[in-house]
């Protein structure tokens, strides 16, 4: 990518000398990577189901947002729901104090990354993945350096409410914009926390290229929800890096509900012995939306356990895709890794792709994977209709029942009900 194109994407002259070391490092890392590597193409295995050429050509037409747009707290409530606990809001890649709620929470340090300059923890901030895990988009994110959250849950803390991080795009006039939000989350030893990240937009066709790096220390426990409910014309590229230390546990859910093109990558490594991760997700593309999930679970420690469960409801002319990669490193013992992907294809034009991708380089492994792709069951539909339930409602009931195994356990309840509304709304928009 040429310097000129890069400058258009990240804005001129941002690399000043006042930025903290972690920011300078991310920027250098991104710039170096981009100078040495091309952007991904569909020939790259992990980008096969994302129309990455369309994403890159859309990027060519965007502007960097002005930092002075405004949006009301009420508008954000409607987009992301209202949940107990503090909320950090970023509008067009900049911290938005007006709609944020920084109620102090015992044992939790919460601030915009941009404020992590003189802070004692500033040196420890990591908002980009390791160099060998970068791709063109995460490199671009590091280079652009938009704002995001810094969350640190102190050792042993167990806040009873969720921390909510909200990324809002507000396109200006007719000009599509791109933002590169980056967040860093640390769950210290023995801490328990619940974190929600929401990606939304106030209309238009924004591009989002997001990155979140999460570290869970020894015996830490994290529940993480990543919710993408952008408008039907949006383009969303998201990356989440989760590193688990010994005995750490995480339960992550990714819900891909909006956007014309959405690709979410969850890149997890069970670094420490006895680390454990559950990753679940739901994607509901309709119309001509293309939703892709790419999951990697890298079993680096021994006695580690992972479980992936993803479901897709693919309607209209949409495409849904799931790639689930399991890596078991040589020399590890007692690894357990499971994976399931079920999709419901609602029309003859909808398409669903599922791909297990296993690299098992050790012997002491229990690994299962399974995938199903099916239509709504005719017999179940007939049964409901024979009781007087109209066809459209019978279909809705069966689709909800299919997704419920992913959504029913979502906590807090306020998030579960918000999502249920968002899914219903998104599905209604796309119906012919």
């Amino acid at each position, binding site marked *: 990518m040429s310097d000129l194109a890069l400058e258009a994407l990240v804005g001129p002259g941002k690399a000043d000398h006042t930025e903290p070391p972690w920011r300078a490092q991310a920027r250098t890392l991104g710039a170096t990577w981009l100078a040495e590597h091309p952007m991904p193409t569909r020939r790259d295995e992990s980008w096969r189901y994302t129309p990455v050429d369309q994403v890159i050509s859309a990027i060519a037409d965007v502007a960097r947002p002005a930092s002075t747009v405004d949006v009301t707290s009420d508008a954000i409530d409607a987009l992301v729901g209202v949940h107990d606990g503090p909320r950090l809001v970023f509008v067009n890649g900049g911290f938005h104090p007006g709609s944020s709620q920084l109620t102090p929470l015992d044992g939790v340090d919460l601030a915009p990354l941009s404020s992590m300059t003189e802070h004692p923890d500033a040196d420890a901030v990591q908002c980009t993945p390791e160099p060998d895990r970068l791709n063109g988009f995460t490199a671009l994110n590091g280079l652009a350096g938009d704002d995001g959250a810094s969350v640190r849950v102190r050792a042993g803390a167990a806040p009873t409410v969720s921390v909510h991080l909200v990324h809002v795009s507000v396109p200006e006039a007719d000009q599509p914009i791109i933002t590169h939000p980056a967040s860093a989350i640390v769950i210290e030893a023995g801490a328990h926390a619940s974190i929600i990240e929401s990606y939304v937009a106030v209309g238009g066709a924004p591009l989002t290229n997001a990155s979140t790096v999460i570290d869970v220390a020894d015996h830490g426990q994290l529940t993480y929800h990543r919710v993408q409910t952008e408008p039907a014309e949006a383009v969303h590229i998201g990356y989440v890096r989760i590193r688990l230390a010994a005995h750490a546990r995480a339960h992550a859910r990714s819900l891909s509900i909006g956007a014309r093109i959405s690709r979410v990558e969850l890149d997890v490594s069970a670094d420490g012995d006895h680390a454990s991760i559950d990753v679940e997700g739901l994607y509901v593309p309709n119309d001509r939306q293309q939703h892709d999930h790419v999951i990697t679970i890298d079993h680096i420690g021994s006695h580690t356990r992972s479980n992936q469960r993803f479901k897709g409801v693919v309607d209209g002319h949409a495409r849904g895709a799931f790639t689930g990669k399991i890596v078991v490193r040589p020399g590890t013992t007692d690894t357990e890794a499971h994976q399931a992907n079920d999709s419901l294809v609602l029309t003859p034009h909808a398409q669903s792709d599922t791909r297990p991708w296993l690299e098992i380089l050790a012997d002491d492994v229990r690994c299962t994977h399974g995938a199903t792709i099916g239509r709504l069951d005719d017999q*179940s539909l007939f*049964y409901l*209709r024979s*009781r*007087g*339930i109209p066809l459209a409602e019978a279909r809705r*009931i*069966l689709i909800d*029942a*299919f997704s419920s195994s992913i959504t029913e356990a979502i906590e807090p309840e306020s998030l579960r009900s918000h999502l249920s509304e968002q899914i219903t709304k998104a599905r209604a928009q796309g119906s012919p």
Partner: protein
Amino acid sequence: MLHIKGLTASIEGNQILKGVDLDIAPGEVHAIMGPNGAGKSTLSAVLTGRDDYDVSGTVTFKGQDLLTLTPEERAVAGVFLAFQYPIEIPGVGNMYFLRTAVNAVREARGEPTIDARSFLDAVRTRMAELDMDPALLSRAVNTGFSGGEKKRNEILQMTMLEPALAILDETDSGLDIDALRAVAAGIERQRHPDRSMLIITHYPRLLEYVRPDVVHVLRGGRITRSGGPELALELEQDGYGPATPIPANAR
């Protein structure tokens, strides 16, 4: 109530029903008996609107041309089928399903819907009558139910939907004697001057508990004999007899 004339049905080129004629007056209970493969379940499927069959003939239900209605419209008109093999629907709560069905039917008829509290009270009463475990309400529809629980759940749906025509397809199959008695008593309680029933069964056992007004024999896609309740007993002793209809002059 129900007038069937010259009803034929075929699936993938195989003709299963070859001209069924049947009239059921309001309040009457009819039984259709016949050997396996006679077309009994096809008859119930065609009457409730499964679209797998090519159908000809006429079926008039309370003055309406039944064959032009969708399955849900037939339910609203008052047709109910207790399935031979009730469908398991994981992820859909039994209580939610029941209330959605009853309120969908009421709404389509222009009647007020029933609130959750009153509905729950009504369901609990009916469940107690059927000797059903109340825990089945909070489970997914038929999912993991025993054979007997599934059949009772069908009768529960019937008592909540209060149909004008209840078709019971092999409702007795797979039931032990206690379950059979409970189910039969549930059916008996539903007898009403405005409600007709069509009991489809392979064995005469259920008819010892639910006494039909008329018994028909369905063989080879046609009704070959009709008679009073004594016909069921005769069939039990002598079997179903010849496959071809007995000529009228020989009766």
